[in-house]
């Protein structure tokens, strides 16, 4: 059951993790205990979210409200975005090697996959095309610091940008892959 402790908020884990771990050691491992620990982790995350956001939504002043908590996890967010974009990026790269650079043997190797793709439901196409754009948004979110604050009764919106190497790399890959796809579809459209 101890791996479940990793699901608890890190600050909370630093304070109570060892005590809870000792308690778990002293208890029999049952499905009910496992569920209780999972529920506890979810409740603490919800509590943290509500504690951070709710009072600021209803207050007329106070500290600025960050619009999302992804800024705290830019690396994890970049990795998620990379995972989402990866199938399309691989597909585009291999297609480029096969049909643009015409590397020997690549087209024959890729053909069965292309045939399968043509017979696949349209949603597969849409997912492949939409993935880099979705990944772009996800990787970009932690770099955008949009803050809402109320000063002297006026709502003030501040936009800030920051650079994180991994996120910027993923953004670049998404732009290249997305650009390639847009170019491809524009060419197809114009040819027709």
């Amino acid at each position, binding site marked *: 059951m101890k791996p479940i402790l990793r699901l608890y908020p890190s600050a*909370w884990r630093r*304070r*109570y993790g060892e*005590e*809870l771990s*000792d*308690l*778990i050691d002293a*208890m029999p491992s049952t499905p*009910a*205990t496992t*569920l*209780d*620990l*999972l*529920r*506890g*982790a979810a*409740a*603490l995350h919800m*509590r943290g979210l509500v504690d951070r956001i709710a009072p600021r939504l209803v207050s007329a002043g106070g500290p600025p409200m960050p619009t999302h908590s992804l800024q705290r996890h830019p690396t994890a967010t970049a990795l998620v975005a990379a995972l989402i974009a990866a199938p399309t990026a691989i597909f585009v790269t291999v297609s480029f090697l096969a049909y643009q650079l015409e590397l020997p043997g690549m087209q024959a190797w890729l053909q069965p996959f292309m045939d399968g793709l043509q017979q696949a439901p349209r949603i597969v196409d849409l997912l492949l095309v939409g993935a880099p754009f979705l990944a772009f948004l996800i990787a970009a979110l932690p770099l955008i610091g949009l803050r809402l604050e109320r000063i002297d009764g006026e709502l003030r919106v501040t936009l800030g940008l920051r650079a994180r190497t991994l996120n910027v790399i993923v953004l670049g890959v998404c732009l290249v892959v997305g650009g390639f796809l847009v170019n491809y579809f524009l060419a197809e459209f114009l040819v027709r």
Partner: protein
Amino acid sequence: MLLDVANFAGVRLGPGTLYGALSRLEEDGLVEALPLEGRRRPYRLTDAGLAALRGRLTGLNAAVSIGLARVANR
């Protein structure tokens, strides 16, 4: 603590529930942690915690008294 709650209240708390409640109580200043005793970390009520508990028990006591009186009259 789990055994104590189970004995006097008849409720078996899970470890996640117990520590979720404990952290909230500490955050609200109603309990405080004491120095470690071996691997055990004792907690005790603060003055605010004691006042809150007294208020809650008094309220429950009033509800129980009224409830019992009404049941007795039926």
